[in-house]
Structure formats: structure tokens, C-alpha cells
């Protein structure tokens, strides 16, 4: 953490640059897979290609929110309450929100193509929207103000509550019979009705999006650390100025 703080030029290190190159390469390959190699779907035609963005991005969002919750739990249970966990939680939360947004947008474009409408009030779609809003609320609470520790504790508790929304989203299709695709991949069953390359592309998409996520989170965490450090330095100056106020 402190290496990033020490280098004033940016949040990159050698390792993250490697990660970044990997991410870009795998993204490029994913584009090839999705747009060129994989076949059109029998029913959906070319529009099925949206899947390689839509599905990995929501799964990565789950991972992100899971990470937010895990880091929050670690923060709350650790003895020394290191703020690094809070920053990881916050960074993952922000990027998770981004990925949900991507999934919402691609999903509704896909919906336009395959159902003829951008949006229906189906359980999966609605619960995804609620998930999005819940984490917007989480980010709003992070910005409520107070000391870093107040922010960390408050938002950690909220993150642990918010994660409860994910099972709701995931199982919503089964709870309420809905238009949306039932869970076909992540059911744990054996009867996966997807062509091999499609499945491979999907999982490859998951991997590349996860790489992208990790890359973003590390940078975001470091920039948050820099912000905190700046604030600390600002506090030193502010304390000096405050002492000068004394009339003596």
C-alpha cells in the first residue's frame, strides 16, 4: 500500500502493468471469440453475442459485491481495523456498480432484440435494478462524511446487509416464473444445453472480465489510498493552521 503512496506519478506498479497487459490481451481474444469464432444461435441469431458481455459482467459484479462484503467482514472482525480493507471494499463496490450497469445496459439492448422491448417488469430484471440501487445507496452512505473510521464501520455493516440481495437476484427466476433465461450454467446440473465453443467463450469472458475487475480494483484502491493520504497531509496542514488561530 505504501509503495503506491510513495510514488507520486500514478497507481501502477510492474505487477499491475503485467495484469493490465494480460487483461487487454484476453479482452481482445474474447472479442475475436465472441464476434468471429463462435456461431450464431439457432433462435437468436447474431444477437446472442451480447451474452459474452452481459453474463460475465453480472457475474463479475457478484464477485465484486462478494469481495465488498468479505473485505467489510474482515475489517469489522480484525483487531487493528486496517483501513486498507475498507478501501478494497469501497473500490470493489464502485466497480461492481459499474459492472451491474454494463449488464443492465447490455441486457436491455439484448431484450430489445429478442423480446422486442428494452425493459419488462420481470422478477430478474427488477431485482437486478434493485441490486443496482442498493449499491448506489451503499456508495451514498460511504459519502455521508465523518471520520474514515466512521465511514468504514458504517459502510461495512451496510455491505454485509446488501449482499443478501444477491441470492434474491439469482433465485428470482425460480421464485417468480419469469421471461428471463433461467439459470442454465450455474445450476450445478449436468445438462448444459450449450454448444462447446459457446460455453468456452462464456467462461473465457468470465475470466477476462475478472482480470479487468482485478486490475480496476487494484488501481482504484490505490487511488483511494492516495486520496486518504492526501487528506492526512491536508490534516497536518490544517492542524498547523488551526493552532495559528489561537490569539495568544
Amino acid at each position, binding site marked *: 500500500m505504501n509503495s503506491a503512496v510513495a510514488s507520486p506519478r500514478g497507481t501502477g506498479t510492474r505487477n499491475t502493468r503485467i495484469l493490465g497487459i494480460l487483461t487487454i490481451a484476453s479482452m481482445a481474444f474474447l472479442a475475436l471469440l465472441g464476434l468471429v469464432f463462435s456461431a450464431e444461435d439457432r433462435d437468436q441469431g447474431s444477437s446472442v453475442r451480447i451474452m459474452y458481455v452481459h453474463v460475465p459482467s453480472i457475474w463479475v459484479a457478484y464477485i465484486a459485491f462478494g469481495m465488498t462484503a468479505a473485505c467489510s467482514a474482515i475489517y469489522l472482525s480484525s483487531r487493528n481495523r486496517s483501513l486498507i480493507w475498507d478501501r478494497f471494499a469501497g473500490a470493489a463496490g464502485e466497480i461492481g456498480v459499474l459492472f451491474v450497469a454494463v449488464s443492465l445496459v447490455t441486457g436491455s439492448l439484448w431484450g430489445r432484440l429478442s423480446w422486442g422491448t*428494452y425493459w419488462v*417488469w420481470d422478477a430478474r430484471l427488477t431485482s437486478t435494478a434493485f441490486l443496482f440501487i442498493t449499491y448506489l445507496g451503499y456508495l451514498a452512505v460511504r459519502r455521508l462524511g465523518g471520520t474514515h473510521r466512521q465511514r468504514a464501520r458504517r459502510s461495512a455493516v451496510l455491505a454485509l446487509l446488501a449482499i443478501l440481495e444477491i441470492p434474491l437476484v439469482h433465485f428470482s427466476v425460480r421464485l417468480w416464473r419469469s421471461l428471463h433465461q433461467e439459470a442454465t450454467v450455474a445450476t450445478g446440473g449436468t445438462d448444459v444445453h450449450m454448444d462447446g465453443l459457446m460455453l468456452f467463450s462464456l467462461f473465457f469472458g468470465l475470466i477476462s472480465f475478472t482480470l479487468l475487475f482485478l486490475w480496476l480494483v487494484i488501481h482504484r484502491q490505490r487511488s483511494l489510498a492516495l486520496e486518504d493520504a492526501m487528506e492526512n497531509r491536508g490534516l497536518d496542514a490544517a492542524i498547523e493552521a488551526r493552532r495559528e488561530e489561537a490569539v495568544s
Partner: protein
Amino acid sequence: MSTFEQRRRVAFAVARKDLTIEWNSRILVNQVAPFAAIIMVLFAFALDNEGILQRVAPGLVWLATLFSMLVVIQRTFAVESADGALDALRVAGVDPSAIFIGKSLALMVQLFALELLLVGTAVVLYGVEMSLVGFAEAIVTLLTATVGLACVGTLYGGLAAGARGRETLLPLLLLPVVAPVLIGATRATEAAFGSGGAQVSEGWPWILLLAVFAVIFAVVGSVAFGPLVDE
């Protein structure tokens, strides 16, 4: 009695102050707008069965506007009474009708921004396709409805502001009065959206109704705000 020039100056000062407060606190942008969007989602969720939703979309836009308006008005008067500023305004001899006009103006700006967002959401979510005339009609509807809503909201908001338990008095006073706006704006929006096969031309009489409402409450408000709030 103050001159016209004075009154204009004070009204603008009040409006500027309210908008500055919004600018400083960003409540509308950060919180009311998401709230309004959530309301639309909740409605949809509670009511969606068998395609009811598409037909009632314009009604939902206006219901969401009304509920968000309640929040905005409460906030705009909470700001006045938090530290007794309303008393200070009254005792500064600021002309009540200027206060009314100023606060209504600020409320109009905020409401209009909110409605644009809501209508935009509805257009995107429900796949509404509007003609150019329909679009113009929608804008005119928003404008006239907003003026009426802002005036009546300010009037009753001011009345409720003094009372203990204002969180609950305001909706009680306000909701019955705005029912006509709700109907008129919904019908006009239906015409603009073409929901349920409505024609664009069917909207104008409703807009007229909204305009009449706006004028009535702008005038009544300027006159009645003093007596209602002051005593």
C-alpha cells in the same frame, strides 16, 4: 406595501437562495432523483400483471412526480424552519407574496428537472415512441403542470411548515388539491405518448385545464400566502 420593483428583487433573492441551498447540498441530484426512479420501479413491480403497466405508464410518471414533490417541498420548508429562518423572514417584513413567488420559482426549476428525468426514464423503459408534435405536447404539459404544482405546493408547504408534525400535515393538505393536476397531466401525457391509441390532439384540452389550474394557484397563492403563513 412594497413596490413592484422591490417585490421582484426579493422574489429573485428568495429563488436564488433556495437554488443555492440545493447547489450546496445536492439533495435533489443525489437523493431525490434516485428516489423518484425507485418509485417508478416499485409501482411497476407491485402492479405488473398482464400488461397493465404499459397502459398506465403516464399515470405512474405523475404519481412519482407527486411523491417526489412532497419530499422536495418538505425539504424546502425544513430548511426554513430548522433554525427559525421563517420567523426571521416574517419579521424582516419581507413581502409574503414575494416569498411565495420566489419559493415557487425555485420549486419549479427543481420539479421540472425531476420530471424531465422521469419522463425520460418512462420513454426509455416503456419504449414510448413520440412524434415531434407529441414531443412538443409533452414539454408543454410538463411546463404547465409544473407551474401549477409548484404554486400549490409552496402554498400548502408554507402553511404546514409552522405546524408541529408537518411531515404528515403536508400530504394530507396537498394530495386532494393536486388530484385534478394528476388527472389532467396524465391524460395529456397519454395523448403525447399515444398510450392506448390516444391521439395527440386529445391532449390540448387537458393542457388548458392545467394552465387554468396554474393561473388560479399562482394568483391565489400570491394573495393567500401572507395570511396563511403569517398568523
